[in-house]
Structure formats: structure tokens, C-alpha cells
């Protein structure tokens, strides 16, 4: 069963499920979940190397045929820091793809829209393919699109909360208005919520915590794969409209006779 492929700035994705790689119990589990998810775009973070310690190397576990890496800028607080982080990410991973995230607030990890827009303007001029993580703000999404973002990634709920599409009404406006792909990122906690986003017309979803902290992350990755596909198929099949009053599914002729 195939759905339309997704195109982001020259990159083509058959799977509309993007995966975050945080919080997995081991690199092997992360690898197996990525494979089970069918995802073709997975995020990695960047951290300062702890010089005297041997740390397990993550990238070798993600060298999976058909899977591209999407480095993020998690940990930065300003546009200036984000630009340096992006340049380091490009150098470390040899990719122009970038998940731009600037969230100085440690409690809710909500993205800073002003710094994100400023960083997008700079990084677009430097040739990055920018996927900014932002609040579900339709005006901001248009501004980011105008600034050169290749996609927008509005949140459903704060990172790691598994609360689902709390921002649903705003996501609908973003999807309606956007001239670039819309990837619902953050907060998706259940496969049904991924399907819901896809049915609404989101171009993709990005899921991490819901898979990584599941009792069986590999099985959950496959459940999200199917749900994302299911939601997209429903969207492409064009769902019927919601009505207030009933509309009969069976003929209403009075076959037992009248009079």
C-alpha cells in the first residue's frame, strides 16, 4: 500500500513518520525501532564531547539504508548559538538538513519564536534545509516560510508529554495555509494521534518519546508506522464531511406499506 511521496527541498520520503532517537534504552533498541518504524528521516542531537570518557557512538547505529539524519540544535538558547550549532551539525554529519529548535525554557521546552525566525533568516542564506520546531502559530509559520524554511514543525503539545494534538485548531489553520510541508512534532503520544494528524492533512509527523519509552519500543514503532500510513491513506481517500443532522445510510422507503 503506497501513498504519495513527501518532498522536502529535493529530498523524497515514502514514509511520513519521522523519528527522534532520544530516550531509547540502548543504541541497539534505537536501531531496531528505526528499522521497524520504516522511517527515512531520524533526528540526532549534538553535545559537547566529554573528553576523558569513552562515549558510545550513535551515528554508526543509524547507518541504515534509506535513512537520512536530521541533526537538531537542541540545547541552544539564542539565534546566534543556533547558527553555530547548525554549522557544527553540517560539519559533523555532512548534511544541510537541520531541525532548528531554540527552547530556552527548561520546564515546558517551548520554542522561542523570535529567535527561531531570526536564525531561519540567517541559515536559509547559508543554504541549510531548515525544519523549524515551533509553537502551533499560523502567522509564525507563514513568516518562517517567507524566511526560507523548507517545512514547518508545529507542536501538538510540549515535548515528551504524550498529550496529543492539544493545538488541533491551530494546526488545522497551519495546514490550510502552509505553502511548505507541515510536520506535526512533539506531544504525539499514541498511534491514534499520529493518524489523527495525518487525517487532518499534516504532511508528516515526528515521534520520539511515545516510541522510546513504550514497554516494547520496536512494536510501538511499527504501530506508529501503520497509524501514520493509515491516516495518510484516509486523507488521500478524502474523508466525508462532518454533519449535525443525520443522513441515512439505508433507503428510507416505507416497504412495510403505508395506509
Amino acid at each position, binding site marked *: 500500500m503506497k501513498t504519495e511521496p513527501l518532498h522536502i527541498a529535493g529530498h523524497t520520503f515514502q514514509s511520513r513518520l519521522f523519528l*527522534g*532517537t*532520544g*530516550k*531509547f534504552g540502548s*543504541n541497539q533498541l*534505537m536501531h531496531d525501532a528505526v528499522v521497524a518504524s520504516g522511517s527515512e528521516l531520524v*533526528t*540526532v*542531537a*549534538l*553535545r*559537547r*564531547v*566529554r*573528553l576523558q570518557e*569513552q*562515549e558510545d*557512538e*550513535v*551515528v554508526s547505529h543509524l547507518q541504515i539504508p534509506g535513512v537520512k*539524519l536530521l*541533526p*537538531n540544535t*537542541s540545547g541552544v538558547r539564542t539565534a546566534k548559538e543556533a547558527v*553555530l*550549532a547548525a*554549522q*557544527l*551539525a553540517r*560539519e*559533523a*554529519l555532512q548534511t544541510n538538513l537541520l531541525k532548528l529548535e531554540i527552547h530556552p525554557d527548561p520546564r515546558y521546552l517551548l520554542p522561542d519564536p523570535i529567535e527561531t525566525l531570526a536564525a531561519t533568516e540567517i541559515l536559509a542564506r547559508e543554504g541549510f534545509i531548515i525544519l523549524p520546531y515551533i509553537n502551533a502559530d499560523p502567522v509564525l509559520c507563514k513568516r518562517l516560510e517567507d524566511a526560507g524554511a523548507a517545512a514547518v514543525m508545529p507542536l501538538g503539545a510540549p*515535548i*515528551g508529554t504524550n498529550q496529543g494534538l492539544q493545538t488541533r485548531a491551530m494546526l488545522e489553520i497551519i495546514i490550510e495555509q502552509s505553502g511548505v510541508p507541515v510536520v506535526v512534532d512533539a506531544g504525539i503520544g499514541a498511534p491514534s494521534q499520529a493518524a489523527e494528524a495525518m487525517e487532518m492533512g499534516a504532511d508528516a509527523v*515526528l515521534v*520520539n*518519546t511515545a516510541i*522510546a519509552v513504550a514497554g516494547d519500543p520496536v512494536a510501538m514503532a511499527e504501530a506508529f508506522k501503520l497509524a501514520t500510513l493509515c491516516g495518510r491513506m484516509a486523507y488521500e481517500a478524502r474523508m466525508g464531511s462532518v454533519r449535525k443532522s443525520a443522513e441515512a445510510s439505508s433507503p428510507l422507503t416505507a416497504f412495510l406499506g403505508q395506509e
Partner: protein
Amino acid sequence: MNIYVNDEETRIDSGQTLASLLASLSGGRQVAVAVNDTVIRQEEWSDYPLQDQDRVLVIAPVQGG
């Protein structure tokens, strides 16, 4: 002379290049480097002489969402 590697004060010989510093510190990991907030590409490491008080930032990919 002294430099700062990820904010840690580190004593090195004068004339040491970025390549030799990283060979001794990074343990062969895939890293990217900035000196004084400017990214230095890997092909430039062997010709890049470190200066006293340089701030060297060494990062590597890790799991993240």
C-alpha cells in the same frame, strides 16, 4: 600555553595543531570543531595552529529528538 577545550583549561605545547589536539582527545569519534566560535573544517585541522587562550568547542552527535 593554555587553551580552553569545552570550557576546560588545557595546557598544550605552542605550535600544536588542531589535528594533533583532537587526535589525543576525541578518541577517534566523529566530531565537529569550532575555535573561537568559528567552525574549522576537518580538512583544515592539520594546518590550524592553536593560539594561547583559544576557545575550542568539540561536539559529537548523540541520541536526541
